[in-house]
């Protein structure tokens, strides 16, 4: 470690303070200050941001060490070790609430101080690392636009990202043990409940689509098994596919519109071909006796071809009905123009 560990001593007895200072230097630490009162201790800690504070509980002045220690720890999360001759249960109870990193009873020896300091500093580093890890995970979880959460086997939320918190209506991402997913919230999450049962039963990933008002989601559930049932987790992901769905719908509408256009063209074309045939037939019957039969044969051939086009048209009507029935099976899904056209006219 390049930089020395900096410690503040809070002690109203000058001799004890000096003794501690010598001791700490001997361990290789730097003493950034000595305070005699609680108020001074807070001011020093704010100025120097030390790595640790050794805090006497019984101080001269209005503020005692526990109050000062609690303040310093909560403001800057600096670890506190209490050093005191008093150890009544009441004092210990008060001290505990400030989550101290150690508690040393006077009279102390050098070894006790050194051990307490080393353990406190090491624990503090672990805590900082854990906090940093949590921060990293949170950054990662919030970096994806999908709403994600982790449930335990009792459907309690263990973790979730901000997007999911918003969906669930939580204003804080910090979730406590009593938060079961409110499955019927605004109609959302309703299908989730049965799917969770499904995945707990089969263990196979589950994927389904869910529509909530004007939004579409692809919901994925993955079971992360632990050493036993209790420790298994369910990962839940809500992926927004609204744009994709809208595009798909537009394509379907366009496809059907195109088929309708083709159908119309067939009708017009067939009518246009049959009119001259009718005219030719009429003229031939009027005054062409020699080749009448042959010309009629040719006319009937053309008419046969047109009839085949007619059948093609019937086929495309079939295709359209098929599309309406199978692709747009959800009535909500049918674009307005088509649902109106289809409404009740087909017998």
């Amino acid at each position, binding site marked *: 470690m390049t930089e020395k560990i900096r410690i503040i001593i809070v002690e109203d007895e000058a001799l004890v303070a000096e003794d501690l200072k010598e001791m700490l230097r001997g361990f290789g630490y730097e003493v950034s200050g000595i305070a005699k009162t609680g108020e001074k201790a807070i001011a020093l800690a704010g100025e120097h941001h030390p790595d640790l504070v050794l805090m006497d509980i019984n101080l001269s002045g209005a503020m005692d060490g526990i109050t000062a220690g609690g303040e310093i720890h909560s403001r800057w999360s600096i670890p506190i070790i209490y050093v005191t001759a008093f150890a009544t249960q009441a004092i210990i109870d008060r001290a505990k609430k400030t989550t101290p990193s150690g508690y040393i009873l006077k009279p102390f020896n050098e070894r006790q101080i050194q051990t307490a300091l080393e353990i406190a500093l090491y624990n503090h580093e672990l805590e900082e690392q854990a906090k940093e890890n949590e921060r990293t995970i949170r950054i990662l979880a919030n970096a994806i636009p999908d709403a994600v959460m982790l449930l335990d086997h009792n459907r309690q939320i263990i973790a979730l990202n901000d997007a999911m918190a918003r969906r669930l209506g939580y204003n804080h991402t910090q979730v406590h043990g009593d938060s079961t997913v409110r499955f019927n919230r605004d109609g959302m999450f309703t299908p989730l409940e049965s799917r969770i049962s499904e995945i707990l039963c089969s263990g196979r990933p589950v994927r389904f689509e869910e529509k909530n008002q004007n939004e579409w989601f692809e919901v994925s559930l993955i079971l992360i098994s632990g050493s036993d049932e209790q420790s298994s987790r369910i990962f839940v992901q809500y992926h927004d596919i609204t744009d994709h769905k809208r595009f798909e719908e537009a394509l379907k509408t366009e496809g059907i519109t195109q088929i309708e256009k083709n159908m119309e063209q067939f*009708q*017009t074309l*067939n*009518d*246009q*071909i*049959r*009119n*001259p*045939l*009718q*005219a*030719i*037939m*009429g*003229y031939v*019957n*009027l005054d062409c006796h020699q080749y009448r039969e042959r010309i009629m044969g040719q*006319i009937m051939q053309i*008419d046969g071809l*047109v*009839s085949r086009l*007619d*059948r093609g*048209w*019937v086929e495309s*009507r079939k295709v359209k009905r098929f599309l309406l029935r199978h692709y747009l099976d959800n009535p909500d899904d049918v674009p307005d123009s088509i649902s109106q056209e289809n409404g009740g*006219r*087909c*017998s």
Partner: protein
Amino acid sequence: MQLMDTVLVVDDEPAIREIFTVYLEMNGYKSHAVTGGRECLLWLKTQKPDLILLDLMMEPMDGWETLLAIRQYPPSSQIPVIIITGKTPTAEDLVQYGGLIEDFIVKPVDFKMICESFHRIIENDRDLGREIDRVKNEGQDPEFLTEYIRLLRLTSVTNNLKKRLKDRQCSDQIPLKKLEERLQWLHEKLGFPDQVRSSSPLH
């Protein structure tokens, strides 16, 4: 000899108008041809033909629109109409309009042959008209009468298409048997003579 029957031809194709007119006159009809739906309605304001031959695919007013207008205009509401067109009908066409027309004929067709059948259609229509008046005078339910006329036309048109078209997509979707049972029931209830149902053109 009675007066010549008048046939109105509504078609936007000049050649069709010419041919139809020639054949109609050869077969003893008085004929008049107009180029579209609007002209047809205009002509009907002053004239009353005995039969109307109506094309479907016309601009700007198509045949179905024209048909509805003919039926809604009281002086022409009872005139028999035959659709003659290059468009094959759909089941929806039949359901919607089959009860308003005497026949649906797909071009090209031997016009000489169908011309002969028009006399019978006109004659049948006159018989039917007399029977309708009789039934009305008897004070029968007018709704039954309306339904009877609609079913009479629809079943006749469907049966004709069934016989003539190779592709029966449209007519096969009509529940003909059920309609005919209902028609028979109405026929007996209203006391129509059997000959009004027996004949249809192009057998």
